[in-house]
């Protein structure tokens, strides 16, 4: 049983991904991308399966898991026949160019950061087997206990009598934990700890492998070093909170959007990564309410690309293509959104972030709230991540200034949409602070660093994909064809 559940989970995730991945010889980076995404998809599937089991009152969890896997395998086999084997040549990507000794130092730095992070995580898990901080026990693992122990009364836990447990929070993490507990037959503390570590590890692997695939080894190592050297990320990996899982799904959506662009450049079908990007954005929304904001921000950014950018560029073909992009993204997000809507409408009580309209309007027109929130954003920008002496964000600015180049890039629509998506998410967080019914200082103090953390891996990905690049993939491909 301890092996069966992870095996079914990973296999389900893999076959869901493989359904859409063109059959071809893959680079090591692409294999790692698949492994990281498979873990995330598998955990997402496990959460939804368990939620349905609870709703239906079923007690055939293993059979359901096996059925889901068999269904995915059958779909994979049927679809594989339709997927043409492609043997595209990987375009030469523009990595940072530096002497071998510099790259060697970077490789050693990455190795040191990795070993230090693993060492810290292991000791933290031993020291805090139930998570580090009260949210693990009072929210995520408590919901998992209600789901696991509750039987027919599982929904008692999503009750307005215990508002401090945030019963309106979505269930990806809690339902996944409960799913694994059901296999074990007990609520072992090690399960949420391992799930937290899997999410953190998958985030690191996805960040590094996606950049290795899309930008190059040096950029990948730089981003990996930055993430592994962020003490707050490593600490949160063992906290059993849902911010690292959310950061994984936000990163996955961003990576898949950029992979879609990459596939367009190499002449492959990009619909599949767009559908998967929608699915991961849906999983983000199923992880935490902030994920809903991120999903909305991505949709708005795609709509922006469809309308504002389109009005500048005439051409019905591109307009149609952008509509297809949006449709593929929404098609991926729709199934998970339907589950979230059901949960919010039929299970969860109302959330605690919105008070009456009059109070919210009054708060919106209170200038000091803007000033306080801006100040905290600025402070957090400089101290985020608990970096030592030099903040990570300042390090990135210095790196940008040292490596910037005169660019010949044409605007990269997916990169722009991803940047806009992250910026809108931050703006959405800002708006929530303005209207929060909680004490503003208290709310900022206990949540802003975790909100920044949710966007940190995706920000690192976008930064290292963009910084110091002179050409984009399209112009690279064009110059290649000319030569």
């Amino acid at each position: 049983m301890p092996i069966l559940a992870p095996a079914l989970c990973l296999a389900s995730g893999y076959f869901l991904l493989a359904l859409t991945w063109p059959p071809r010889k893959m680079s090591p980076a692409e294999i790692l991308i698949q492994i990281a995404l498979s873990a995330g998809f598998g955990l997402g599937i496990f959460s939804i399966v368990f939620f349905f089991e609870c709703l239906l009152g079923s007690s055939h969890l293993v059979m359901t898991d096996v059925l889901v896997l068999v269904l995915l395998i059958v779909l994979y086999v049927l679809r594989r026949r339709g997927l043409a084997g492609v043997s595209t040549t990987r375009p030469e990507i523009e990595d940072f160019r530096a002497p071998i000794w510099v790259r060697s130092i970077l490789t050693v730095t990455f190795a040191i950061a990795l070993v230090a992070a693993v060492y810290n995580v292991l000791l933290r898990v031993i020291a805090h087997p139930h998570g580090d901080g009260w949210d693990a026990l009072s929210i995520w693992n408590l919901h998992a206990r209600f789901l696991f122990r509750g039987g027919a009364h599982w929904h008692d836990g999503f009750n307005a009598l215990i508002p401090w447990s945030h019963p309106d929070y979505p269930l990806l993490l809690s339902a996944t934990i409960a799913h694994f507990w059901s296999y074990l037959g007990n609520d072992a503390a090690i399960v949420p700890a391992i799930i937290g570590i899997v999410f953190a590890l998958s985030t690191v692997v996805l960040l590094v492998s996606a950049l290795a695939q899309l930008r190059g080894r040096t950029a990948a190592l730089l981003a990996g070093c930055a993430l592994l050297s962020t003490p707050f990320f490593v600490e949160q990996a063992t906290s059993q909170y849902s911010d690292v899982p959310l950061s994984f799904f936000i990163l996955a959506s961003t990576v898949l959007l950029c992979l879609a662009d990459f596939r367009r450049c190499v002449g492959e079908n990009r619909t599949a990564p767009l559908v998967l990007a929608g699915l991961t954005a849906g999983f983000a929304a199923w992880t935490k309410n902030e994920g809903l904001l991120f999903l909305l921000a991505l949709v708005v950014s795609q709509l922006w690309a469809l309308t504002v950018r389109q009005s500048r560029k005439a051409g019905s073909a591109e307009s149609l293509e952008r509509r297809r992009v949006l449709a593929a993204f929404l098609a991926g997000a729709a199934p998970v959104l339907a589950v979230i809507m059901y949960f919010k409408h039929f299970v969860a009580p109302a959330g605690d972030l919105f008070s009456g309209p009059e109070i919210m309007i009054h708060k919106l027109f209170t200038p000091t709230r803007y000033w306080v929130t801006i100040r905290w954003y600025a402070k957090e920008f400089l101290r985020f991540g608990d970096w030592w002496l030099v903040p990570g964000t300042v390090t990135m600015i210095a790196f940008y200034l040292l490596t910037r180049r005169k660019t010949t890039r044409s605007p990269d629509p997916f990169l722009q949409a991803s940047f806009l998506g992250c910026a809108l998410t931050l703006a959405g967080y800002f708006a929530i602070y303005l209207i929060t019914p909680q004490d503003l200082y208290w709310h900022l103090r206990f949540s802003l660093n975790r909100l920044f953390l949710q966007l940190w891996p995706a920000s690192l990905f976008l930064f290292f994909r963009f910084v110091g690049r002179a050409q984009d993939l399209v112009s690279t491909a064009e110059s290649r064809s000319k030569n």
Partner: protein
Amino acid sequence: MHFPPDPDSHSTSTSAGILLFAFCCLLSTGRLLVQSPNPTRVSADDIAQRSDQRFAALKSRLPASGVIGYIGGPGDSATPDYYLTQYALAPLVVDHSPDHAMVIGNFPSSPPSQIPAHLRLVEDFGEGVFLYAAKDGK
């Protein structure tokens, strides 16, 4: 594939950028190591497990589901104590209110005080765990 040739200065500044970045990462990695729990003295903080054990006897006397009241001691640990009680007794919902037919008393660090007049003690489970019932049975 064709890239315009890079001037040496650019390669140098890129190298400088990478080295600076790696150095800052190493500084932060140092902090991570310093902040790690001491491996020779690390011991598990099994607060939730101890709490589960504390409430085990009480749990066997309570219904499997439903809502039960709660009263607890004062002080900084009052809220965490309440959270731990709810965590131990889930799927029973523990409402922080004495207005229920059955009420849990949780006084881990001080003897029970200011028990509402409408409650009577049903059983003392030790370690500061009590079960009360409403005198009128409602």
